[in-house]
């Protein structure tokens, strides 16, 4: 069984600070996706990384896929209250999308609160 561990589980910081959250596994994934989920809503895809060592930027968010494709990190610069939410990483074993026959394996998430 493949597992994804996310850390920290909870993080509360002040507006303007930087932060990094981590997603680690002992297994190799074909792709790694990051989602943000707000209360009462479904997860919304932020990014997909597929190549070991790949770095993608989305405004103030920087995503990195580990060289061995077993881990990933999300770095937020100058956090804003609008960044508040549950950040989920998900690994796929086939192609780049829904994970194929095995679906996506999700971590438990990092609950992020940005205080104004």
């Amino acid at each position, binding site marked *: 069984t493949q597992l*994804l561990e996310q850390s920290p589980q909870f993080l509360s910081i002040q507006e303007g600070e930087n932060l990094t959250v981590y997603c680690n596994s002992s297994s190799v994934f074909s792709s790694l*996706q990051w*989602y943000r989920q707000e209360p*009462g*809503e*479904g*997860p*919304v*895809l932020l990014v*997909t990384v597929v190549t070991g060592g790949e770095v993608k930027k989305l405004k103030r968010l920087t995503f990195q896929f580990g060289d061995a494709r077993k881990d990933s990190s999300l770095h937020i610069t100058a956090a804003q209250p609008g960044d508040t939410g549950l950040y*989920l990483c*998900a690994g796929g074993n086939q*192609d*780049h*999308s*829904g*994970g*194929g*026959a*095995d*679906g*996506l*394996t*999700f*971590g*438990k*998430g990092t609950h992020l609160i940005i205080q104004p």
Partner: protein
Amino acid sequence: DAGVTQSPTHLIKTRGQHVTLRCSPISGHKSVSWYQQVLGQGPQFIFQYYEKEERGRGNFPDRFSARQFPNYSSELNVNALLLGDSALYLCASSVGLGSSPLHFGNGTRLTVT
């Protein structure tokens, strides 16, 4: 364009009962996946359907079943409900298999008492 729609949004059932949850994918999307999200956990894969055929199944008991209709909408059925089935059930659609990102609905919150 409408996103993925799920119904009902909330549901309360008693142990032993059965439940049917419904999902309408984004127009043009042919694949639907179902995930269960227990409070404090990440979503867990239940099923994936594409062109009305089951393409993947997660580690869930046979009490869980699903189907996809010709219009690509889908139903998730759960029989003999247990307290542990209480969760947010998420439906996600994608254009197809391959490099198609998932678009999630807002889920159905099922409470089993």
